[in-house]
């Protein structure tokens, strides 16, 4: 396993108004992975990214990018990073081509029209290359921001809530670009509060709330570890109520009496499925169909954040 591309050790950030937005965050990102940072509004996702990129100063800890300390050796560190910010902040009067070329230059890369052209084509922006940015729709502006972030061929790409308020076509294009980048070895860190996004794309997931990184886990393992499964039994004949022998088993009977739902922990030594099926047969309940359902990241996430029994901070004032 090669060195991690990004390491945060004990990173904390207190804003000038005294608000503690990051509380000693430790995180290590592997080269080439897609990492989803999942958390509610105000959790500190943007603050974390901004600290890595040098947009906000942080008050404690260290950050290294590709082995370069992002304060002492900020040039080498930043040159590796591309950032698509959360807010749609673009120039207005510049053309798409100019603004993308500008970023490339800013990141110290010599002019290369072929690279800029490829990036623009990948993002379906080629036809708009001579348009002024202010004439573009919101979705197109977001594409421009992505193009800017890719213009200097970064090794580490941050996508801060990339699909918030984005249409289907852009989502599709974006994931296509992300897939291609990953194939080329680019590391991608995306933040989101949409669970599906993390579920769909990520190799690993980190959950952050109130400035604390609550856990970091392989996506598959996370779902296994924290996941509960539901066994859904469709009955041959509806029941009016659960037989007394089956009470206290965590079974739920649907309102129409035709389905039984058994929730179990996939990690438990016994799932109780075998005994349940036996007991049902003994009661003379016949099963027509059955399916199991894995709980989604959303359920896991809601569970984790709720565990901290404090309401999550809402978006900044």
């Amino acid at each position, binding site marked *: 396993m090669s060195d991690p591309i990004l390491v945060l050790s004990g990173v904390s950030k207190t*804003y*000038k108004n005294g608000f503690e937005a990051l509380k000693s965050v430790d995180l290590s990102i592997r080269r080439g992975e897609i990492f989803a940072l999942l958390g509610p509004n105000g959790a500190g996702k943007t603050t974390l990214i901004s600290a890595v*990129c*040098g*947009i*906000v*100063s942080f008050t404690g800890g260290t950050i290294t990018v590709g082995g370069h300390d992002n304060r002492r050796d*900020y*040039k*080498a*560190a*930043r*040159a590796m*990073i591309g*950032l698509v*910010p959360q*807010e749609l*902040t*673009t*120039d*207005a*009067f*510049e053309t798409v081509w*100019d603004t993308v*070329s*500008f*970023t*490339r*230059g*800013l*990141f*110290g*890369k*010599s*002019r290369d029209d072929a690279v800029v052209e490829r990036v623009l084509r990948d993002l379906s922006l080629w036809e708009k290359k001579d348009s002024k940015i202010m004439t573009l729709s919101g979705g197109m502006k977001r594409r421009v921001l992505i193009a*800017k972030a890719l213009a200097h061929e970064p090794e580490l790409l941050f996508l801060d809530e990339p699909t918030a308020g984005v249409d289907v076509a852009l989502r599709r294009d974006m994931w296509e670009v992300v897939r291609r980048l990953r194939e080329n070895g680019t590391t991608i860190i995306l933040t989101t509060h949409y669970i599906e996004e993390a579920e769909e794309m990520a190799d690993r997931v980190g959950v952050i709330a109130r400035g604390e990184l609550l856990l970091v886990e392989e996506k598959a393992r996370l779902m296994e570890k924290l996941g509960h499964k539901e066994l859904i039994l469709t009955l041959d004949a509806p029941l009016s109520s659960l037989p007394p022998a089956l009470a206290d088993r965590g079974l739920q009977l649907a309102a129409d009496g035709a389905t039984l739902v058994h929730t179990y922990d996939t990690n438990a030594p016994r799932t109780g499925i075998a005994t349940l099926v036996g007991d049902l047969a003994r009661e003379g309940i016949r099963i027509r169909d059955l399916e199991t359902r894995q709980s989604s990241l959303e359920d896991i996430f809601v569970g984790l954040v709720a565990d901290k029994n404090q309401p999550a901070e809402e978006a900044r004032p």
Partner: protein
Amino acid sequence: MNLAAVWAIYVFEMNRWRRTILQSIVSPVISTSLYFVVFGAAIGSRIPEVEGVSYGAFIVPGLVMLSLLQQSLSNASFGIYFPRFSGTIYEILSAPVSPFEIVAGYVGAAATKSVILGAIILLTAALFVDLRIQHPLVMLLFLVLTAVTFSMFGFVIGIWADGFEKLQLVPLLIVTPLAFLGGAFYSIRMLPEFWQDVSLLNPVVYLISGFRWSFFGQADVSVTTSLVMTFVFLGLCLAAVVAIFRTGWRLKS
């Protein structure tokens, strides 16, 4: 040294200027012409020679300086204030550029525009008066030094300002009055002695005086003093810029 970045910022700023070239060039040319009509022709015809040159020619260096100061300030302050205002500053902050490179790009572009403008005003002036420049190299030196100094001053204002009004505040309330009182239209020596001494506290006096010396070979204060003072202001502005980046003042939260 990230030269590509310096160049990118420089080109970006020059393009911004090109898009509004008409108002960037035409309005100073018109206002300069008006000054000549009013002060040079209408009033100046009643004023005898000042320090051995016609009044019309006498005010040329002051007029150029006046425009130079105003344009350097407004160009450079707007150049850095606008990205802060619109949020696009994130890109500059996250790029592998040193403070020096950022300043070189923004201040370099603002100073270039000012020098071009100064040259255009000189050419305009030449249409109205018989203009002779005794020390063209010294003139160029003052032109460039002043443009750089006040572009840097403008950069500081652009970082300090947290609204468009504040952007106008310093040029309007401080620099323009100082320029008018600094001998743009008269020689300090025409004042009563007390006010001569007071005037010497005005930094712009040294800029105008040195610049005027390069034209006519004489001025209110010695050219050496002017040059030294110009470098002092340059140093002060530089120190302010360094302090800003050291502390991240108003740039990073």
